[in-house]
């Protein structure tokens, strides 16, 4: 009898309890540090009873919200699906396939320097527009190939890699062309965003300096 209790009943009970905990908890605890919720007491949820004051409060919120929306077309880069858009609030003016950062890492075994090849996410602005751009190869480009980092800056320049146009959005990141158009749609870059030549030309011509770039 004791054996049956020990080897059959107890494990069965443990399984039932574990299942029950899973069922109740939904698998994992939510990380409250990362989770964001808005309880009603964190916002001024009651409008003032005075109609003038109430109108003023509504106008204030409206103004704050409308100030967030770009009045002109903006670029959106969806790094999850490798798609790039030129859009205004309710419509898409251009949709194209692109390639974003691979998320891979490279560590220089001699110095220990580390690079993570992610496309940055957030809100940026087009801060440079360059026709016929040349690529100035960073250190990792040489180290990846097992080559020496050149002392002469001229040896870093490559006129063929970035296509016909480049749109800079800060910190050395660009939306540019590619000689590897067959890889578009796959996350293969070192952080820049590659676009096919025809789409890049349209994008370049339709986006003035200061255009917002939203990357998610």
């Amino acid at each position, binding site marked *: 009898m004791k054996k049956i209790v020990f080897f059959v009943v107890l494990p069965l009970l443990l399984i039932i309890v574990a299942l029950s905990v899973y069922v*109740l908890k939904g698998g994992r605890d939510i990380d409250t540090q990362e989770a964001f919720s808005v309880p009603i007491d964190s916002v001024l949820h009651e409008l003032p009873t005075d109609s003038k004051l109430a109108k003023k409060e509504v106008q204030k919120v409206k103004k704050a919200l409308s100030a967030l929306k770009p009045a002109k077309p903006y670029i959106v880069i*969806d790094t*999850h699906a490798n798609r790039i858009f030129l859009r205004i609030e309710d419509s898409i003016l251009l949709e194209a396939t692109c390639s974003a950062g691979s998320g*891979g890492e490279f560590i220089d075994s001699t110095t220990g320097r580390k690079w993570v090849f992610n496309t940055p996410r957030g809100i940026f602005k087009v801060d440079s527009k360059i026709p016929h751009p040349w690529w100035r190869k960073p250190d990792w480009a040489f180290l990846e190939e097992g080559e020496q980092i050149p002392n002469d800056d001229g040896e870093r320049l490559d006129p063929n890699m970035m296509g016909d146009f480049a749109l800079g959005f800060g910190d050395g990141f660009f939306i540019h062309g590619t000689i590897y158009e067959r890889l578009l749609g796959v996350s293969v870059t070192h952080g820049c965003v590659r676009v096919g030549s025809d789409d890049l030309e349209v994008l370049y011509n339709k986006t003035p*300096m200061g255009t917002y770039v939203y990357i998610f």
Partner: protein
Amino acid sequence: MFIYSKAKRIIADAGKIVAILMAGIILIIGINACKDKKEPPAKQGRIETKKWDFKSENFDFALAQAELQLAGLKKPYLVLDFSKNKLILKLNGVAVWDVPMEITADESDSPEDFTERFFSDNNLLVRPLFDKHLFAGKGQSSDSVLKIISGVVRASVELMQREVPERFQLEWENGLLIEFRTEIMGQPKSKFKNTLVELRRTLQRPFGESAMVVRLDSKHAITLYRVAERGLPTLIYPPKYGGILENITPSKEANQKLERKASRK
């Protein structure tokens, strides 16, 4: 006589085992019942601490302020826009992705029911995503092709591969659930986990739930599935909503600022 007494003992032992198992099951049902006292049944009378009138100016005002707070995060958040039947991802208050929300009416609770449940309990205006589960899907590119590319660009196949979902669920607390289905035929990710998730849902259903089934294009599903990390803030524009958030136009000031900056460069 000996056989009779042995049989009697075996029956008694079996009885004890059944009794222990029953006690365990009763205990678990008890825990379930206690836990779900906090979650009122979906379609029976709800006990809300705050009952919103979704057409009132106060609700509209509170919602707009909640969205302002979300915009300040500078991270994506999800909007279930039942007034226009759209799923929208926003970043800093700006739409960066939107798709029509095609709700399968015969398999879903009404958007009104979902909205009411969303805004009841805990008085939350924005809820974080509680869980997601991928039932079935398939890789966007073949692994063999990615392996070749991987050799050239020195990135791992896992990082480059994108899972195209066939069927996945997003879940918020308070029994809120949306199941997304796409047109593709995929492979089950884990039959065991799928069964557990189904079991959990079945056990929770009697204690209150509002669930919907939404059809989604597979190319859009990739984005939603990947963005929908646990904790993703979620907001609802209720059905027939016509408030502040639907009537926001870009400000002239913002436009002028943008032009001034551009001309300086």
